[in-house]
């Protein structure tokens, strides 16, 4: 990381500045082996220094909002899976909490605990993805594959809950798709232990690794003021020393009843971001263990026929329930007219849903406030004047998930 174009020159040599030439225009992306995510970074380089950059997103824009407006509220849930597809359940939860706020209902305790456990499993999946892919882009293939193995354990848990590894579609308006299967707690503990064991190896490979530290320490720094001005949230902000975590400041589900720490960094460089995520993995495991121990019995769905389908057995045998099922499926749940903004702590920061209802079965507007979008915006400032090689770890640690950034 030495400067070749500043400071002292050996006699008889000429500095880079004095060579006649033009800045090199380099396109990084949209398809690039060292960026996980579809993004195009146009760069103008002077040697290895970045003079100017333009981060262009939108390659994965699929019209999430427009699709939601065209369907019923329940039909939007599979679309939310595909926002931050590394942590699908957190998106499901955020959206359903927003719609439930419109209705003015709250899911019973067992449902809330299961949602919390599932959210944290998704958060683990996201962090494993970020750290693994991040290492891979710095040419460390082994930790990547180890992290993928750890992520597989998390996906096994997703599969046990809802049948799907990635596109979970687990949460429903007013409840969940189904209750946790028999023996889920034991399976969960087993998988967490396995994942942590693998991750311990990853830490051994990365945390004190001189090459890894060299690439990450001191790179991609942005001050807390800058980050706040850009609306950055999540591990990116916490690494800069700002203790903002919605699970603590504006708790939802049962986070206020569980004991966990929020890791804060010091310098806000890429290495701190890495350490923050590593510690968050440990805290997520802690949350899951407490929640499993405290998991109450009872129903998982709110008992409100305006939004939750009646049990199938009654639908096939009883008139009123048949009619309710019919109306809910063909016309959709109709929340009272109004608007609501519900934010949850996604793996990358504040994931907000702003939903406007006009009283019909289809949302008038369904806006997803994406943490990746705001986080990626600050990339340009972070790499200004930095070396080209620093773009890679910075972009990795921002963890831009294309689905969430571009919606």
């Amino acid at each position, binding site marked *: 990381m030495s400067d070749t174009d500043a400071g002292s020159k050996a006699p008889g040599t000429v500095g880079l500045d004095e060579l006649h030439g033009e800045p090199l225009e380099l396109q990084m992306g949209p398809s690039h082996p060292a960026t996980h995510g579809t993004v195009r970074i146009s760069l103008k380089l002077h040697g290895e220094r970045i003079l100017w950059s333009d981060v262009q997103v939108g390659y994965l824009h699929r019209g999430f909002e427009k699709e939601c407006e065209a369907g019923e509220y329940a039909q939007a849930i599979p679309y939310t899976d595909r926002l931050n597809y590394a942590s699908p359940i957190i998106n499901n939860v955020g959206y359903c909490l927003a719609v439930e706020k419109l209705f003015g209902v709250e899911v019973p305790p067992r449902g809330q605990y299961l949602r919390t456990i599932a959210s944290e499993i998704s958060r683990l999946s996201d962090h494993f993805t970020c750290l693994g892919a991040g290492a891979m882009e710095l040419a460390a293939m082994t930790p990547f594959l180890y992290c993928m193995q750890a992520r597989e354990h998390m996906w096994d848990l997703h599969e046990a809950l809802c049948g799907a590894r990635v596109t979970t579609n687990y949460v429903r308006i007013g409840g969940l798709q189904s209750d946790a299967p028999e023996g889920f707690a034991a399976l969960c503990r087993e998988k967490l232990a396995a994942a942590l064991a693998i991750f311990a190896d990853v830490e051994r490979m990365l945390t004190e690794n001189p090459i890894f530290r060299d690439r990450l320490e001191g790179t991609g720094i942005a001050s807390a003021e800058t980050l706040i001005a850009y609306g950055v949230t999540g591990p990116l902000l916490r690494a800069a020393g700002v203790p903002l975590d919605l699970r603590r400041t504006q708790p939802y589900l049962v986070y206020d009843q569980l004991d966990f720490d929020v890791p804060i960094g010091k310098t806000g460089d890429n290495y701190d971001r890495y350490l923050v995520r590593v510690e968050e993995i440990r805290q997520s495991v802690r949350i899951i263990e407490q929640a499993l121990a405290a998991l109450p019995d009872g129903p998982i769905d709110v008992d409100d*026929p305006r939004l939750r389908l009646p049990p199938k057995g009654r639908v*096939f*045998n*009883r*008139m*009123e*329930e*048949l*009619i*309710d099922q*019919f*109306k809910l499926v*063909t*016309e959709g749940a109709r929340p009272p007219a109004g608007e609501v903004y519900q934010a949850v702590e996604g793996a990358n920061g504040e994931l907000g849903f702003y939903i406007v209802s006009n009283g019909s079965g289809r949302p008038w507007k369904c806006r997803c406030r994406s943490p990746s979008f705001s986080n990626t915006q600050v990339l340009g400032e972070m790499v200004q004047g930095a070396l080209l090689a620093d773009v890679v770890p910075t972009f990795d640690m921002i963890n831009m998930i294309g689905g969430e950034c571009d919606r």
Partner: protein
Amino acid sequence: MANITVDGTPLEVPDGSMLLPALLDHGLQVPHYCYHPKLSIDGSCRMCMVKVEGMPKLTISCNTPVRDGMVIDTQSPEVVNARHGVLELLLVNHPLDCPICDQAGECYLQDYSFEYGTREGQSTEPRRKLLKRVDVGPRVVLDQERCILCRRCVRFCSEITETRELAVFNLGDESRIDTFPDEPLANDYSICTADICPVGALLSKDFHHKMRVWFLDETESVCPGCSNGCNVKVGVARREVQRLLPRRNDAVNDTWMCDHGRLGYRFVNEARVREPQVRRDGAVGEIGWEAALDEAAARLKTLGAAEGALAVIVSPHLTNEELFMLRELIAQGLQTARFDVALQFGAADELLIKEDKAANGRGARDLGLVTGTLEEIAAGIEAGAIRGLYATGTDLWEVWGPRSAALLARLETLIVHATNAHPIVELAHLVLPGLTFAEKRGTFTNVAGRVQRIDRALDPGSQLSDGEIFFALAHRLGAKLSTPRFDPTLMLQEIARAVPTYAQVSWQALGGGGLPTAEREVAAPVNAEAEG
């Protein structure tokens, strides 16, 4: 007007009216089954009960006259409880047919049960069994189990058609709707009973299991079956017309329409002519629009050069705008041509069905296109004086009857506008595809002189409308036209200028209900010279 208060809001309602229609006309939601604005008051369903201050018990709002100063509560716990009770009892014996019942999506029982009903029924008794899929008539099917005995159908047959086919048989739990032996529900308005049935007990056989109603895009239009111009809703799905439903228009058809008109949508979907065709050396081939229009213009020009060699037969199924365009075409491009309208007449009744069987015969008359010379034109063809015919529709075939084939075969040039495959197409030298009423915007004038809008329910794609064809031909014949293109809204403005009785008519002003152009209802005079 009387001043009443409903749920705390003051409202002004017409004096002497019943409470329920007054509330419904103000857009308030009050559930009801047996009440219908065009039938007598029954008071049998007990669903419309509301609380009137000062009365000890709840009253049925359909049979309570408004009085100045009345204070009404439609949301009180008593009312909510009453609705729960009525719905629960209605659902006790109702079959679990929603998944196979056509009414789903427009079923009053479903809607009210979801909004106002109890969540669970308390009865565990088995439901009473009655007949399902009873063939009560040629066009209607009855499911006795689904019936909630609101008696709307019985009152319809008794008061509107006065044919009294349906009745309630037996008493109490054994009550059912049925017909008398050997007396099917076969009146000309039988499918209206399926309209007014709030549940899926009486259903139209034509629409049975055809399409779920929430897939239908509905467009307001007018039925083209006869000159009465009943207001309809055209239901379209998968680029086909699936059904027609009557729309309420108190000046034209109340809430009814006849079965013949209702089932007369099939021609829109079947055997359509979509591309221009030309006959050369005995073979029929498709040609492009530009070539077809050039050919048509050339032939018309040649014929128009000789006095009296060309006749134009106007179709009374064209919209006023298209007829006006045709009038311009004749006046400026085909001055030597003879013309008349091919009107068809048939049986009429005292209710809605009219003698003049065309959608816009009156419009053609108002625009001065009726000359009464159809027979002379036939004679002219027979004699060989008329060598060319421009038929802007296929009605001519039915009007001239069996001699049509022989007559038309004598022609040098026969140009026909056709929407569907038809015998006349076989004889034509040039066939230009036409659009049906469901595919264009425009206006029809009904027999009483009321101008009503029709709208585009189906997208015709790149196919030209009849009016656009007339416009293109007029251009090729060198006419100077007052509008830059064929646009129904612009044409209507021209008509308003040209025809004194249409002075107040404009697209906006017509709205959904149309506008009258005559002082009083004037029946279309029978064309004594026409056959049939």
